[in-house]
């Protein structure tokens, strides 16, 4: 019952909520980002990061550093923290934490299938998979020729199995089918996660509904923009939008027929939360849209920590860490390419 979590939450979730709030305090601050943005080389970045929680993960890396190395090691830290929380969690928190990784699982499945289609070595593909999305039989994905085999041989025993009902066909896997499979799986995953949070009820349902609705709406906008000028039909585009969110259903109808970024803006500006996002962009421009959406997402994720006794803090922390890793990736690319004037194009400050 909403409002009474304070009486029972701490019995099973108190320890882990304290742990995640402690981890949140370790997120990089604006001062840290200012120091990092002034680095001349990646070794300078490593030196600055040695004073943060990433220090132990980077200290043994030899010079010269690569941008991918920094991202990999920072991701390892996130994975270690997640695994510690998962092994300490009881139901339903353990299921909630597992839901957070299904998106990475979908990305890994698509990476393996696409790489196999392009005749790449499976070992090479496995090294590039996100560690949060790994599962036991992932290497067997390379054997499948179509989605039916993909499901029957591998995915039937994974948490992604229920999401395959809408995209099982015997058509051979090609680039378009794989893209549709990716987006259909992610749509099914988001809807399932949303229903699970609604079932949990209370503050978790309220906070997670807002965060997942924003995620669904952002995906709808990205699918629309990325599909402009491609062979994806309007009907196929509409089928990839999730069946929840602020834009569902009327916003989706407008987005499905958009042919350029200005029409997308016209559809989105009818919704006040997104009007503020699009007001930051000039007409015809889409380059800064990602950053505008990330900034809004970070604002909502930080607000999740203002309330206690709910699972939303775990989701918010994981997403904030991923944003931090994205920031570090961008800063390291700008430093490596000697383009420091562009470093603030994509860095989103969390505090």
């Amino acid at each position, binding site marked *: 019952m909403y409002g009474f979590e304070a009486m029972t939450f701490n019995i099973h979730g108190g320890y882990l909520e304290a742990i995640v709030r402690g981890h949140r305090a370790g997120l990089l601050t604006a001062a840290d980002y200012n120091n990092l943005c002034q680095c001349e080389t990646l070794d300078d970045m490593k030196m600055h990061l040695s004073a943060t929680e990433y220090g132990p993960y980077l200290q043994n890396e030899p010079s010269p550093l690569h941008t991918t190395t920094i991202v990999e090691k920072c991701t390892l830290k996130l994975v270690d923290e997640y695994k510690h929380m998962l092994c300490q969690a009881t139901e339903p928190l353990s299921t909630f934490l597992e839901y957070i990784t299904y998106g990475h699982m979908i990305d890994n499945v698509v990476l393996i299938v*696409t790489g196999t289609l392009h005749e790449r070595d499976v070992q090479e593909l496995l090294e*590039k998979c996100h560690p949060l999305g790994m599962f036991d039989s992932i290497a067997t994905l390379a054997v499948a020729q179509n989605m039916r085999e993909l499901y029957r041989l591998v995915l039937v025993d994974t948490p992604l199995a229920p999401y395959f009902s809408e995209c099982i066909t015997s058509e051979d896997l090609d680039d378009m089918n794989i893209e549709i499979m990716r987006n259909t799986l992610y749509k099914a995953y988001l809807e399932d996660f949303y229903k699970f949070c609604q079932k949990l009820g209370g503050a978790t349902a309220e906070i997670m509904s807002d965060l997942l609705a924003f995620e669904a709406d952002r995906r709808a906008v990205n699918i629309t923009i990325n599909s402009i*000028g491609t062979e994806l039909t309007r009907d196929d585009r509409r089928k990839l939008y999730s069946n929840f969110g602020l834009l569902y259903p009327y916003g989706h109808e407008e987005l499905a027929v958009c042919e350029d970024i200005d029409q997308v803006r016209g559809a989105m500006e009818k919704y006040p939360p997104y009007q503020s996002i699009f007001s930051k962009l000039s007409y015809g421009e889409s*380059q800064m849209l990602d950053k505008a959406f990330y900034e809004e997402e970070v604002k909502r994720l930080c607000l999740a920590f203002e309330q206690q006794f709910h699972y939303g803090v775990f989701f918010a922390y994981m997403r904030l860490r991923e944003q931090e890793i994205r920031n570090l990736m961008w800063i390291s*690319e700008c430093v490596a390419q000697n383009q420091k004037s*562009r470093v603030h194009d*994509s860095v989103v400050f969390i505090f």
Partner: protein
Amino acid sequence: MEVVDHETPSLENGQTDKEVEENANVLQFMDSMDAYLTLIHSLSSTLRRGWLELASARHSMGASRVNTVLLDHTSHPAATSLLVTQDEGKVDSGKPHFTLCKWASSSNENSLLGEKQSSQDKLHPQLRHRGSTELYEEKTSSENKASREVDDPVQKERSKSLSMFGTLVSPKLRAAQLSFEAALETLVEIANMRSEMLCAFDQVNMKLAGRKDEK
């Protein structure tokens, strides 16, 4: 009585035809070197822009979607090829000429028009270009009809090249593709300019050697 020397005709500014020709060769060499250096600088800035756009696309789409492991290792025809010809009917017939044949699966006419279109694409964001196809439909001149016919095959070839990263890719990745396409065109121009520059240098050297022999 004036003595007119017919063996060494002189011009108003006191230069002989030979000297004028030598000066023209030197000027041609310096012009071609200037153009070569300008193109090198342009290539450098285009490549810098391309690499940053690729990093931006990776930031937007995620590291798992923009990755070297997704590059296609299946055998497939090249989307772009380079044609090397010799300039015939000219004094400097040993000079090679390089021509870029882009999007080779389209017709020759289409690919040449596509090169013109791609140079326009460099100036305008891809989304705006795609969004303005409705404006193209309103034009009735045959040239615009031809460019319209070229648009679809060229765009299809571009999308086909990018499809290794997925069918629904970010506009940033498309912008990176255009930048690297422009860099490829610049490289071919550099090769042609270098060939011209070396030819002009040879001409200057020949004239200098001839002068030394005369002395």
